[in-house]
């Protein structure tokens, strides 16, 4: 069962400014093997000091405009997923609204979620568009962790990169979502938290959470959608680290090709990892059923099956 509202296109922006993890081997007592085969991140992207969260969104929008024609008049809502906004007040989506020069009767709001944010927000924007009979909405993800990274913390300094993505959701979709799963383990919220403007992550707790909950969630998701593991062409898991993805591959007994780690050259870009990866598969018709699954801050997770729309004209 598919709905008529879904993903029409995706574009993204990754700042062309990188920090190589190979430069930190001595400081963090790690070797090439650990960087390449374990965390999987060779370098992390980092925004310029002059760029703020809304600027990343605007760059993603400019990338979208280069590759697809979209009429600003058709945009009825804008959602920005971030926990690192330009300011506490106002919401980033209002600044994006101004920068994109969108019409006044356009709904704008932010969603405060981390790595599960894209999947949650996709469900929200689909419902919002359907309920209000809108034409199109823009779903931005932009969470530049470089604002809060403790550069002396091996657990986080080598992993997180900056990026933004914009997903156009509307009535001429390439992919529509099936049923979603959602979850939260609020009692574990302190395991991934920002205190005094610095990020803290208990790597072992996050690993345990993912290894224990996500395989179970995959089974629930497939059951809800009346599908089997082998009918899924691709699993796009949040790119926490290569080790996390390898663990999920092992626990789900799926091939590594079906659940790739693709963040080697820019890092874990929080809520942007899934749309960045998904953009490369939108026009590849070899992929009909794609699972997207985000997990992290909260601790929370959400998953859904995206189903290719054969005739979206």
């Amino acid at each position: 069962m598919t709905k008529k509202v879904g993903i029409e296109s995706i574009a993204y922006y990754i700042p062309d400014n990188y920090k190589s993890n190979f430069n930190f081997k001595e400081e963090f007592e790690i070797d090439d093997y650990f960087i390449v085969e374990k965390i999987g991140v060779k370098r992390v992207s980092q925004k310029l000091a002059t760029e703020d969260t809304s600027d990343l969104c605007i760059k993603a929008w400019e990338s979208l405009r280069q590759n697809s024609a979209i009429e600003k008049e058709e945009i009825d809502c804008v959602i920005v997923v971030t926990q690192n906004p330009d300011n506490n007040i106002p919401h980033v989506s209002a600044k994006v609204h101004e920068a994109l020069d969108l019409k006044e009767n356009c709904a704008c709001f932010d969603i405060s979620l981390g790595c599960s944010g894209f999947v949650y927000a996709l469900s929200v924007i689909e419902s919002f568009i359907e309920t209000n009979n809108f034409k199109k909405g823009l779903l931005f993800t932009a969470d530049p962790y470089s604002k809060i990274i403790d550069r002396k913390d091996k657990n986080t300094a080598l992993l997180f990169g900056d990026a933004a993505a914009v997903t156009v959701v509307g009535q001429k979709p390439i992919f529509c979502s099936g049923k979603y799963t959602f979850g939260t383990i609020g009692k574990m919220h302190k395991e991934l938290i920002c205190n005094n403007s610095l990020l803290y992550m208990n790597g072992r707790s996050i690993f345990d959470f993912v290894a224990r909950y996500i395989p179970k969630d995959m089974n629930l998701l497939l059951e809800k959608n009346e599908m089997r593991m082998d009918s899924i062409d691709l699993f796009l898991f949040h790119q926490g680290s290569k080790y996390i993805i390898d663990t999920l591959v092992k626990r789900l007994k799926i091939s590594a090709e079906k659940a790739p780690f693709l963040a080697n050259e820019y890092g874990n870009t929080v809520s942007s990892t899934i749309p960045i990866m998904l953009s490369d598969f939108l026009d590849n018709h070899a992929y009909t059923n794609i699972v997207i699954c985000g997990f992290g801050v909260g601790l929370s997770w959400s998953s859904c099956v995206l189903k290719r729309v054969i005739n979206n004209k």
Partner: protein
Amino acid sequence: MEVSLEQIREIFAREVDKKVDVKNIDSHASLSDEGVDSLDSASVFLALEDEFNVKFTDDDIAKLDTLNKIKAFIESKKSA
């Protein structure tokens, strides 16, 4: 309850990176010195928790750096 080193070695062999020669690690040797890194360790202790139904805190894990210490810890928890 007695736990065998073989049971623990099997879990290490399943969870730890293939570059670590688990079969030949001396039961008194420091696991970190033998190449078991923090990510391997997270996998191993999760599997040990599932296998033996015991809970390891972060402080416990910091102290359990040999196969023998892990064996003794699990046995003490199971006997308590």
